[in-house]
């Protein structure tokens, strides 16, 4: 049991159980304690001007009209006789929780009211990708490479290009971005020192303990002169092994009363908090939360989607509590599209257009639902069936990157000809 003396934090309650790994790493040597056991160097709350970006992709197309309910819209209830969320002033036990005079959260998203009331959570409504595709995969590709309407020709991702265009926030950072998962999220592709990692706590070399250093060294050297992308991936991997071995993720204790949901998403959010607090120069984390493709029996208040929204909201709430002392984190959650304004025949919704985004952080102009509301009357619907888009998703990301992530030039991030961002006041 060791505690970092410098900050007195008790967030990591023991030395890493893998502390034998990678003792030879120069990158890590500075962090070694006199007793040679690696330990985490925890900075006190780092309030630098640049925010760590936590990007959550809600895969499958989240139904924005359930995630943020327009309860004053008559057509909302007409179009969705079976799956609408009741207005806050109704007697329905599953009624919406009002955020303002027009919009509310479904009951399972109640945990979001904490950051919302703290003015740290901004809900953007009627936002998304301008291109009308209703293909999950096309829409995700557009959004992840950062395009809007022209044919998606870019290969690298918006967040990857942002990292490539900005100097590391810590010059010696071994790991600048983590994609939680088995493969790198497309929006991180192109980012220097970006790695997909499924589980931060088990990121180490297996096999016989006695030969691990020799084996690691041989493999490292084999990759050194090999063509990319394998060479870079290997170098990032071996250095990251050394780095993460010094952090005891299993022993990590959240603070601020944070209570992460006990599922994969909660685990990813918890790991993200640990990674940020370890202060090792990570500037971006990508997390996927899937399951939003609710074609049938959607369960807005008591079924599948309800429990999924609960997972999301609890994870957001926990991260908000856990990082309450840190001003330099910004979370943005988005989805490839929303769903039809009307329900389908199976009490679900098919692929639609505009949806919601959530932006959370101390520097966010939160506590409000920001929208240029297009309405749900028949003539207001996009292609006669969906909530229309009035805010380009890139506008939101541009404000985050230029005002909070030290990137003055949006044009390298969203280079599409004809796109000029509109400022909406996302950041305080």
């Amino acid at each position, binding site marked *: 049991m060791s505690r970092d003396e410098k900050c007195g934090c008790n967030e990591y309650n023991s030395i890493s159980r893998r502390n034998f790994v990678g003792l030879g790493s120069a990158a890590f040597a500075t962090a070694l304690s006199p007793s040679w056991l690696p330990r985490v160097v925890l900075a006190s709350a780092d309030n630098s001007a640049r925010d760590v970006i936590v990007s959550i992709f809600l895969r499958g197309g989240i139904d924005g009209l359930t995630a943020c309910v327009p309860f004053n819209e008559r057509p909302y209830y007409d179009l969705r006789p079976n799956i609408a969320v009741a207005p806050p002033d109704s007697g329905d036990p599953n009624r919406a929780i009002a955020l303002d005079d027009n919009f509310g959260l479904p009951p399972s998203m109640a945990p979001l009211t904490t950051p919302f009331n703290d003015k740290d959570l901004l809900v953007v409504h009627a936002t998304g990708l301008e291109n009308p595709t209703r293909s999950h995969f096309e829409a995700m590709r557009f959004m992840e490479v950062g395009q809007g309407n022209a044919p998606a020709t870019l290969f690298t991702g918006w967040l990857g290009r942002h990292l490539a265009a900005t100097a590391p926030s810590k010059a010696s950072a071994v790991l600048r971005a983590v994609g939680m998962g088995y493969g790198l999220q497309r929006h991180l592709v192109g980012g220097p020192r970006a790695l997909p990692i499924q589980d931060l706590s088990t990121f180490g070399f297996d096999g016989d303990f006695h030969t691990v250093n020799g084996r690691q060294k041989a493999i490292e050297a084999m*990759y050194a002169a090999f063509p990319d992308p394998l060479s870079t991936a290997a170098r990032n991997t071996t250095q990251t092994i050394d780095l993460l071995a010094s952090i005891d993720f299993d022993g990590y204790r959240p603070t601020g009363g944070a209570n992460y949901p006990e599922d994969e998403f909660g685990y990813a959010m918890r790991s993200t908090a640990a990674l940020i607090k370890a202060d090792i120069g990570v500037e971006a984390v990508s997390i996927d939360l899937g399951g939003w493709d609710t074609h049938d029996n959607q369960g807005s208040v008591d079924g599948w989607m309800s429990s999924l929204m609960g997972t999301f909201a609890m994870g957001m709430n926990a991260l908000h509590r856990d990082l309450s002392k840190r001003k330099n984190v910004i979370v943005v959650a988005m989805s490839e599209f929303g769903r039809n304004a009307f329900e389908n025949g199976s009490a679900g919704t098919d692929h639609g257009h505009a949806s919601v985004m959530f932006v959370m952080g101390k520097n966010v102009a939160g506590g409000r639902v920001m929208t240029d509301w297009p309405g749900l009357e028949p003539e207001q619907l996009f292609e006669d069936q969906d909530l229309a888009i009035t805010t380009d998703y890139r506008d939101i990301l541009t404000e985050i990157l230029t005002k909070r992530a030290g990137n003055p030039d949006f044009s390298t991030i969203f280079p599409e000809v004809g796109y000029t961002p509109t400022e909406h006041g996302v950041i305080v």
Partner: protein
Amino acid sequence: MRQMQASPSPGFSGPSMEELPRPRRSFPRLSLGPTVPRLPASVRRELETLSALGAATPERGAMDFAKLADVDRTLVQRITLGGTRANYARIEQIGYTRYLEEQLDFEKLDNSELEDSLAEALPTLTMSPDALFRNFESNPFVPVFELWAATLFRAIYSPRQLFERVVELWSDHFNIDIFADFQPLLKPVDDRDVIRANAMRRFPDLLTASAHSPSMLVYLTNDSNVRGFANENYAREIMELHTLGADNGYTEKDVKELARIFTGWTWVTPYREAGEVGTFAFYGERHDRARKRFLNRDFPSGKGVSEGERVLKILGDHDNTADFIARKILIRFWGYEPDQALVNRVKNTYKRAGGSVRAMLRTALEKQSLRSAMPKIKRPFHLVTSAMRATGASIGDPSFLIDSLRNAGQLPFNWEPPDGYPDDEAYWSGFILPRWNFAANAMQPGRSPVEVAPALASTKGGKSAVLNRINRFLFDGQMSSSSKTELRAFLNKGRLNPKRVREAIGIAISAPEFQQY
């Protein structure tokens, strides 16, 4: 709703359905818990016998050191799940064209011993859908595990290597997540009766079989697509992912019309009386009888199931389908970025030969075009099978391999969205640590169920001989000089004993050139 009822079953330690990941819906990745359950001992013994059989194969007729033209070696690597010494010897013996034809003519390659052993060890492989529901509705992990085991053993030991590669391609193309609703009992049938039965036939046959597959119809929620309450999920994906390609020659209106055409296409659920459970059904009373217009063609009212059959014909004959499938085959077998001229050649074959998969492969794998093919990265499944094949391994318990695949992110039949596991360098090249760890664990002395061929495991002849054997078995003599240097340095670090040889093999499996094919 459509959750299967689960009850604990004695004798098998797999999780019940309740403990399995959440069913249905497109995207969440799932967790299986720390370890995949073990097979019962009786089954394990069968598989051990089988493994021993397979392990002998690479030795048979193997020449000592094939000296091949690069393009011959590329062909072996493209059309197998890992080249063995026997494969390289064979192509050296009979030449490029005959080797390809031998693999294309897969029925003549005798796999009966393998299939008989599998059928005996893994009884769910041959069960009717009805029998699967009767026997395993309360314990659906059994057919899942058996399908995983069979998939691995076929990929590693079947002489029909190209066939297995093609099966892998169509399993991705017509992706179904085995943990979605009912899929533990439905996907094994789809694998057998749709994918394997049609893999080398005409693409339109495969498409038609898939469209009648309960597994597919449930996965893409066409079972809730009924008159007046259309659900467009399957209608959209059959065009976007299975035939025409995304937003490629159809409109939103076409999606909606096609959804109406497919109303009533469903399956016999365990809760319905008529018909055999788990088979295709068309229910006329759920079908939208009004007229439709799809891809600029009129569909007069009341034609029932034949409307959908007509659509399958239209899609199977469509120019965009030929283009989309040609490109997909080339990306899998040739390389990531085939130029349009090459795509057109395969596409023309599709059109000339009625979508014959065999004919398209023959065009895609022409010697001249394969000469310019660039290396691809093995996906984790391919890495695992190629490591087992190259080392002539026998595998006591496939659970280890399944575990390794889960850690590396490619558990078979477990990609949740309908687009299938990616075949994409950017996606797979980042997460390489689990590949190294698979190799380290597989070769960890005393703690691995994997036995490599005795000839490879031997210390005979000293370090140089060991290094040479590793080079021959795993790289057909093509190991890079830098890998050789590192491996020699590792061997020189200590006494040469069987443990060190195994660890050296593990390092060789981790080498960058072994990640490619």
